[in-house]
C-alpha cells in the first residue's frame, strides 16, 4: 500500500510543453536528490542507464509538439550523453571553461549546413560589471535580471529552459511535421486535424505508452496536459480513447490548458469570429472526450474568460512579471500542479491519485476547479492568525470562467506546503484557544474549514517541504515580497538566490462548474434550448479545416450532448 504508484504524463501541444518543462524542472532529481526531499522520484521519473552505465532519471513523459516548436531541444537523448546540451547553454556562466568551441559548432550545424550561432544566455564578459547582488534592494533586482534574464520573453520556446532530457527521444517525443495535417499552413487548428494526425501515428504512440507501462510495477495513472484551444485536442482525444480502452482501471487526470493569449501580432490574427468558433468547438470536443475517458478533468490557465473573442489573461496581485507570456504563465500553472500532485509524490503516499480523483468526481462530477495561493501569504504571522484574519481570500482560481465558492462546494482538497509545525500557533494563541486541539497544520485547517464551510467534505494534506523558487523558474515577485513570505532563502545557485515558499493548492468538486458547462453549451447552441442551426455553424467551420470523415456532424452533436449530461449531473443536486 505504501509504495508510490507510477504516473505517465502526456504533454500534448506547445503550451502543454511549456507547463511540463517547468513541472519537471521543479522536480529535477539532480538538484533534489531522493534522500533530501520527501518526494519519491519514482512517480514521475523513470530510471535508466546511459551509455556510460550511469544511472539517469528521466521524466516518464510522452510529448507532442509541432516540428517548428522544438527548436534544438533534445537533439540527443540521455542515452547518448550525460551532459544535457540545453543546460550547457544555460549554466555556462558557472563553467565557462568547459565549453569547447568545436563542440559548440558541431552541436549547432543546422539543416542547410550553415553553422547556427549559439546565443549564450550568460556571456562571461557580462559578468565583469555585475556586482554581488544585495538582497532586498531594487538595484539587485536589476542586477539579477540582467545576469540571468528571466524576463517574460527571454524564452520563446520551452526547450530553452527545460533542464531535463528524455531517455529515448525517438519513442517519447513526437515532432509533428506540417505535411501530416495541412501542408499549406503551419498550424494545427482543429480537433479533426488532430485526430487525423493521431491516426497516422497511433502505433508509435501506443508503443510508447506500452513501453512505459510495462516497466511500471504499480501504474497509478496518467496526467494529461493538453492545449484546449487548438488541434492538439484531437491528438489528445485519440490518446484518451486508447487509454480508456486499454487502461480503463487507471486514474487519468485531464488538464485542458489555455494559452495566456498575449496581445501580440500572432494572436491578434486569431481573434476573428471564425477562429473563435473553431477554438470553442475544440474545447468542447476535448471536454467531452475527457468526460468519456478520464476520471477527472479541469480547464486550467491564467486566462480570464475563454469564451470571449478577445480573451485576456488574469491579473495576479503582487506578480511583477507579465502574465501573458507563456513562459511566466506556465510557471504559475506548473507550480500549482507541483503542489497539487505532492501528496501522491511522497515516498509512502497516503493519498494516491486515484483517491484524489474519486473525491473530486463523486456524484459523477467529472469537471473540477483548481485553485491556488502561491505563495500562501502567511508572512510573519502564524497560520492560525492568518486564517483567522483573511481566511482563504488569497486563493485564486486557475480554472477560467469559474469561481471558487467554498460555501456551495461538495468536496474540497487542500494541499498545504511548507508551513512548519511551530508556525501553526503562537504560544499566546495556544493559551487563548485552549479548547481547540490544534497541534498540526492539518488540524488547524480542518478546524477552520469545518467551522466556516459546514456543507462540504474536506480533505486536507500537509506537506512539510516548501516550494523552492529558483532558476530557471521565473522570479514572479519582487524581492521584498518574496523575503516577507518565504520561510528561507539560500544562495546556492549562481543565477540568484532560491526562496522557500509556503503554498496552497486546492481542487474542488463544486456546482459552479455546472455554470461553466452551461456557458459553453449555450455558446455552441446545444442542450434543450439550443438551436441546430447554431450548432451547425460551429461544426462547419471546424470541419472545413479537416477531413470530414473523421468527425461528422452526429459525432459533434454527441459531444455536446455528453457535455449537457455532465452539466445536468451538477444541477440535479
Amino acid at each position, binding site marked *: *500500500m505504501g509504495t508510490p504508484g507510477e504516473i505517465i504524463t502526456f504533454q500534448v501541444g506547445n503550451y502543454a510543453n511549456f507547463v511540463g518543462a517547468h513541472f519537471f524542472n521543479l522536480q529535477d532529481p539532480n538538484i533534489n536528490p531522493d534522500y533530501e526531499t520527501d518526494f519519491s522520484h519514482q512517480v514521475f521519473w523513470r530510471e*535508466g*542507464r546511459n551509455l556510460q552505465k550511469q544511472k539517469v532519471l528521466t521524466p516518464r513523459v510522452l510529448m507532442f509538439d509541432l*516540428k*517548428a516548436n*522544438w527548436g*534544438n531541444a*533534445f*537533439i540527443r537523448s540521455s*542515452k547518448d550523453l550525460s551532459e544535457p546540451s540545453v543546460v550547457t547553454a544555460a549554466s555556462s556562466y558557472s563553467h565557462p571553461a568547459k565549453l569547447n568551441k568545436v563542440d559548440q559548432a558541431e552541436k549547432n550545424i*543546422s*539543416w542547410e549546413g550553415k553553422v547556427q550561432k549559439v546565443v549564450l544566455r550568460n556571456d562571461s564578459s557580462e559578468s565583469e560589471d555585475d556586482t554581488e547582488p544585495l538582497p532586498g534592494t531594487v538595484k539587485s533586482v536589476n542586477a539579477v535580471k540582467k545576469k540571468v534574464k528571466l524576463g517574460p520573453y527571454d524564452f520563446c520556446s520551452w526547450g530553452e529552459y527545460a533542464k531535463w532530457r528524455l531517455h529515448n*527521444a525517438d519513442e517519447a517525443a513526437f*515532432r509533428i*511535421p*506540417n*505535411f501530416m495535417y*495541412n*501542408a*499549406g499552413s503551419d498550424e494545427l487548428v482543429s480537433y479533426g486535424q488532430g485526430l487525423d494526425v493521431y491516426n497516422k501515428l497511433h502505433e508509435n504512440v*501506443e*508503443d510508447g505508452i*506500452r*513501453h512505459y*507501462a*510495462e*516497466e*511500471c*510495477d*504499480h*501504474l497509478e495513472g496518467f496526467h494529461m496536459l493538453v492545449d484546449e484551444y487548438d488541434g492538439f485536442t484531437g491528438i489528445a482525444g485519440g490518446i484518451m480513447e486508447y487509454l480508456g480502452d*486499454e487502461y480503463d*482501471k*487507471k486514474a487519468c487526470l485531464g488538464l485542458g490548458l489555455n494559452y495566456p493569449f498575449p496581445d501580440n501580432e500572432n494572436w491578434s490574427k486569431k481573434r476573428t469570429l471564425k477562429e473563435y468558433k473553431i477554438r470553442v468547438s475544440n474545447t468542447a470536443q476535448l471536454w467531452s472526450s475527457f468526460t468519456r475517458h478520464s*476520471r477527472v478533468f479541469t480547464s486550467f490557465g491564467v486566462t480570464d474568460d475563454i469564451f470571449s473573442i478577445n480573451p485576456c489573461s488574469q491579473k495576479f496581485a503582487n506578480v511583477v512579471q507579465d502574465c501573458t507570456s507563456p513562459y511566466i504563465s506556465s510557471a504559475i500553472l506548473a507550480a500549482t500542479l507541483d503542489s497539487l500532485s505532492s501528496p501522491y509524490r511522497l515516498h509512502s503516499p497516503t493519498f*494516491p491519485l*486515484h*483517491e484524489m*480523483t*474519486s*473525491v473530486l*468526481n*463523486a456524484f459523477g462530477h467529472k469537471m473540477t476547479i483548481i485553485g491556488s495561493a502561491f505563495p500562501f501569504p502567511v508572512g510573519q504571522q502564524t497560520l492560525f492568525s492568518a486564517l483567522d484574519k483573511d481566511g482563504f481570500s488569497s486563493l485564486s482560481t486557475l480554472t477560467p470562467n469559474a469561481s471558487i465558492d467554498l460555501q456551495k462546494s461538495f*468536496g474540497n482538497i487542500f494541499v498545504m506546503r511548507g508551513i512548519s509545525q511551530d508556525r501553526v500557533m503562537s504560544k499566546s494563541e495556544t493559551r487563548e484557544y485552549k479548547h481547540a486541539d490544534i497541534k498540526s497544520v492539518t488540524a488547524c485547517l480542518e478546524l477552520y474549514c469545518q467551522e466556516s464551510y459546514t456543507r462540504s*467534505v474536506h480533505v486536507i494534506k500537509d506537506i512539510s517541504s516548501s516550494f523552492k523558487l529558483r532558476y530557471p523558474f521565473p522570479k514572479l515577485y519582487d524581492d521584498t515580497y518574496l523575503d516577507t513570505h518565504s520561510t528561507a532563502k539560500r544562495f546556492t545557485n549562481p543565477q540568484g538566490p532560491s526562496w522557500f515558499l509556503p503554498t496552497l493548492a486546492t481542487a474542488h468538486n463544486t456546482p459552479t462548474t455546472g455554470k461553466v458547462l452551461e456557458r459553453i453549451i449555450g455558446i455552441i447552441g446545444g442542450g434543450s434550448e439550443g438551436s441546430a442551426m447554431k450548432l451547425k455553424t460551429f461544426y462547419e467551420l471546424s470541419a*472545413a*479545416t479537416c477531413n*470530414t470523415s473523421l468527425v461528422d456532424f452526429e459525432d459533434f452533436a454527441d459531444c455536446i450532448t455528453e457535455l449537457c449530461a455532465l452539466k445536468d449531473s451538477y444541477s440535479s443536486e
Partner: protein
Amino acid sequence: MSAISILNPKAEFARAQQALAINVSAAKGISEIMKSNLGPKGTMKMLVSGAGDIKITKDGNVLLHEMQIQHPTASLIAKASTAHDDVVGDGTTSIVLLIGETMKSAEPIISEGCHPRVVTDGLVVAKDEAQKVLESMKIPVSLDRTFLIDVSRTALRTKVHQVLADHLAAICTDAVLNIYDKESKSIDLHMIEIMDMQHRNELDSCLVRGLVMDHGGRHPDMPTSLSNCYILTCNVSLEFEKTEVNAGFFYSSSEKREALLASEREFIDQRVQKIIDLKKQVCPPGSDKNFVVINQKGIDPLSLDALAKEGIMGLRRAKRRNMERLSLACGGMAMNSVDDLTPDCLGYAANVYEHVLGENKFTYVEDCKNPKSVTILLKGPTKYGMVQMKDAIRDGLRALSNSIQDGFVVPGAGAFELSVHKALEKLPMDSRSVLGVKLFSKAILCIPKILVSNAGHDTQALINRALYSKDGEGVVGLDLENGDLFNPVSAGIYDIYAAKRQLIDASIVVVTNLLLTDEIMRAGLSSLK
C-alpha cells in the same frame, strides 16, 4: 484580366500559358530531384531533420513523404504517386519521372498553339495501347520459392545494396510463404511482425518462426530460457488495482479501508492461483515441460513473485496485436478470463528465451509447430540503416503479396517500357491522336534511359541498340551490370504487374488533368472542401 479579379480583387491567378508553365516547371522540378534515385543503380539521398536525425534512402515513397513540398502542383504529383504505395509498394519514382517527362514534352507542342485537348486525347489512345502491351507480357506466378525470391529481389535491389537485398529477399519470401493461407488464398501482411534490434550486422537479420517481443520478465528469479513450453496468452489483470469504489467517500474508518484493500488483493491472488493450478496440471513434476504466461494487462510484483516461485515465465503488457499473432504462431487462444482455463487454450513453442541488449530485453518465442505468424528480425549497427531496411522490407513484402494476388508479374529491367515504345511506334493512328501518342511513346523511354545513365553506361548507344538493332527483338531488358542487353526473364528480374498498371494509369490521369488546367487561382479560400 481574369474574370475572377472582378469577383475578388485580391485573388491571385495565373492563366493559360502561365498556368501551364507553372505546372510544367513543378513536374520537371520534382522529377529532376527523383531522377538520380531510380533503379538498382540509383544513388541515395540524405534527409536531415531539424533535430539532426538522418535518413538515407532512395525509396521514392519515403522521399516524397519526408520532403517538404510547398508547390501545390508538385505536391499533387507527390500525392498521386504515393497514393497507391500502401497497396502496391513499388514504382513511386517511375510515376513521378513519367509525369515529369510527359509534361516536359507536351509543353512545346501546346506552346505552338495546339489545343491541350488534342494532346490528351492522344494520350488516352496511348494508354489503351500500353495496357494491351502489359497484358501481352504478363507471366503467371507460381508459388515456387526461387521464383518468388526473384520477384522480391527485384523490388529490394532498388532500395538497398545488392548483397543485403539478396539476403532480405530470401527472408521476405520465406515469411510470405509461411503466412500464405492456401485455402482462402489470402495474405495478411499484418501477421508478419517486423522487429528491429540495434545489434551486429545487417546480414544477421533473420526470420524467426514465431514471435519476438520487445520486453522480458520483470522478476529476477524468473527463468530466462525455457524449452518445450506451453504458452498461455491472456488479457487478464494480475495487478492490484485500486478501483474507485474503495476510495474517498466510501469508507468510514481506516480499518474498513484496509479490509476492502485486502479483499481486492485476495481476488488477484486467486487469479494467479488458477494459472498456477493449470501449470501444475499440464506440467506434472518431473516432466520436461514448461509454462509461459503472456499477458496483455499488467502483472504486479507480488503476482510475478508467485509465478516465479513456480518457475513460470510471465510477461506483462504485451502489444495488443501480438496477442492475435501469438495465437496464430503458437496455437491456443487468447483468454479474457481465468475462470475456464483448460489445457486446450494453451499454445506451444519449443523454445522461449530472453535476450538482453543493453537496457532492452527481447523475448523470443521460437520454433512453433506450424506458425501462421512470423517475425522478421532486423539487425544492424546504425539507426538509419535499420530504417532503410524497414522501408525496404515493407516494399519487398508488398511486392510479393501483390504478385501472388495478381497472379502475374511482368519482365523487369526496362523491358516493359521498351516494348511500349516499340508498340506505339508501330501503332496505326489517325491524325488527331498522333501528337499524344508520339509524345507518350517518347516520354516512356525516359525510364530505361535514366536506368542506364544511373548505372553509368552510354545511354544513347544502349537504348538505340535495344530499339533498332537485331539484339532488340522480342522481350529485351537492360543489363545494367555490364551495359548490355539480356532477357530479363532468364536473369530472374520481374516487375510487379500492379505497379506497371499503376504507372500507366496514374501518370496519364495526372498529366491529363494538369494539361487541361487553363487557370490557377488562389482567391482567399482557406481550404478547399
